[in-house]
């Protein structure tokens, strides 16, 4: 990859940055926070500024081999500082310097709304998620979710069935699908729409599920940053969805909570987030009013 340059034009090599990002993640103490801290201290830096080129090249080879083995032949990366990196990602508490994607990148700049919730929804929750998604599609929004079981899957599937656009921000590398039954849905989204992952491919391959599951809530923070707002359809007291609720509040994104969550006497989080500015949604109009104006301003 490192052919001798005839000139010295400062530029970004995506392959080298991919390898450097993977190398940073191979350090034992690596986390989104630890890596973001390094870049906070050096805001103009690229991953390759912290890693020797030969090491970055080695990690790039390893990561690409893992992706290729899993059938991921074509993919792209986005790098902070280079073209097409979404500025809105910088609103995240520990913004990612690099992410992987497959599909139609342009969608990331379309008006996006996240629809998220529990992996074990009630029948009413399923119905509400589908209805909400249909309404968002009708108003021209791209529906973003995390491709998990339950509400996430309903949101993606309904968006596709309604002829809408959808983006999946996943908590595994592009090489994996979780849950496995969503593999086809993931492939369909990658082919026709947009699949995004911030999860380091090599690091993921070296540790077991107990550590890898920690990547799931991290992607909710990125998902929130990519969207105008998040709608929570249904979620328990300890649901990972609440990570996204906190992120939305912190990032200045709209947070919508369906009224049915407030009416569930077992839940304390809806009123807690309402006090922080979340909007209680009695019908779709409550969402629409807030988002349509914002989408047009954006």
């Amino acid at each position, binding site marked *: 990859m490192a052919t001798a340059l005839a*000139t010295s034009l400062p530029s970004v090599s995506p392959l080298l940055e991919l390898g450097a990002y993977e190398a940073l993640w191979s350090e034992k103490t690596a986390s989104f926070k630890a890596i973001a801290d390094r870049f906070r201290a050096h805001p103009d830096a690229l991953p390759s500024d912290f890693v020797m080129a030969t090491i970055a090249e080695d990690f790039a080879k390893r990561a690409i081999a893992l992706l290729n083995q899993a059938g991921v032949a074509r993919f792209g990366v986005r790098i902070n500082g280079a073209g097409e990196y979404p500025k809105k990602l910088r609103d995240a508490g520990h913004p990612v310097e690099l992410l992987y994607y497959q599909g139609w*990148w342009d969608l990331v700049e379309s008006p996006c709304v996240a629809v998220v919730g529990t992996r074990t929804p009630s029948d009413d929750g399923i119905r509400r998620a589908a209805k909400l998604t249909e309404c968002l599609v009708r108003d021209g929004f791209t529906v973003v979710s995390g491709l998990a079981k339950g509400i996430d899957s309903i949101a993606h599937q309904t968006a596709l069935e309604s002829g809408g656009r959808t983006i999946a921000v996943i908590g595994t590398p592009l090489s994996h699908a979780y849950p496995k039954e969503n593999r086809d849905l993931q492939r369909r989204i990658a082919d026709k729409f947009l699949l995004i992952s911030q999860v380091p491919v090599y690091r993921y391959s070296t540790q077991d599920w107990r550590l890898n599951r920690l990547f799931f809530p991290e992607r909710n923070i990125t998902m929130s940053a990519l969207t105008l707002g998040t709608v929570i359809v249904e979620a328990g007291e300890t649901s990972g969805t609440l990570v996204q609720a906190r992120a939305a509040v912190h990032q200045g994104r709209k947070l919508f909570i369906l009224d049915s969550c407030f009416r569930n006497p077992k839940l304390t989080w809806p009123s807690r987030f309402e006090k922080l500015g979340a909007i209680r949604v009695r019908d779709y109009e409550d969402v629409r009013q807030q988002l349509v104006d914002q989408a047009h301003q954006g």
Partner: protein
Amino acid sequence: MSTKLTRVDGLLLADHCYLDAEDECYFVGEYTARAGYAFSPTNDLIQNLKKPMDRLGLPEWKYKERAIAQAGDTLRGAIPQEWLESATVVPVPPSKAKNDPLYDDRLLRVLHRLGSNIAIDIRELVVQTKSTAAAHESSDRPTPTDLLDIYSIDTAKAKTEQKKLVVFDDLLTTGCHFRAIKQILRAEFPNKPVIGLFIARRVPDSAAI
């Protein structure tokens, strides 16, 4: 902070079938529009830049003017002055000849914007001897060999003391135009490196493959 240039490296090379690992090409953004949608600023910029000349005088023309200025400024922000001042920059000739009503000098205009207030050598070294369909409007895309038949060096301009030659185009697609012009320039200036500079590269639609 201005956007950094990206180099076409091993990760991107397969998207541009006429380029190989020895080609040194840079771009700022990526063109990923599908089915007429253009949500991203780069997609918008490229679509406006390529607005055909028959729209001249219509209200939408201002978007083309704006795109020319924006493209020049974006490149200026990404490239150090000293690098530009040691280069001869050669725009890819427009698909329509100068006497054609659809002749579009947008590349030259972007370069003039980029080079305003600095000592930059912009030279239309390569000329096209007959009009063709614009590559982005044509389904029958030429090969570099086809282009060699219609490109020639403007011998009156074929003198440069600069260290390197930079071929400039707005959108890198297959790399065909760059390769044809590189071949012509290498024949004329065998000792000078020939580098490609683009506003954006087009990412092929994965669904179409």
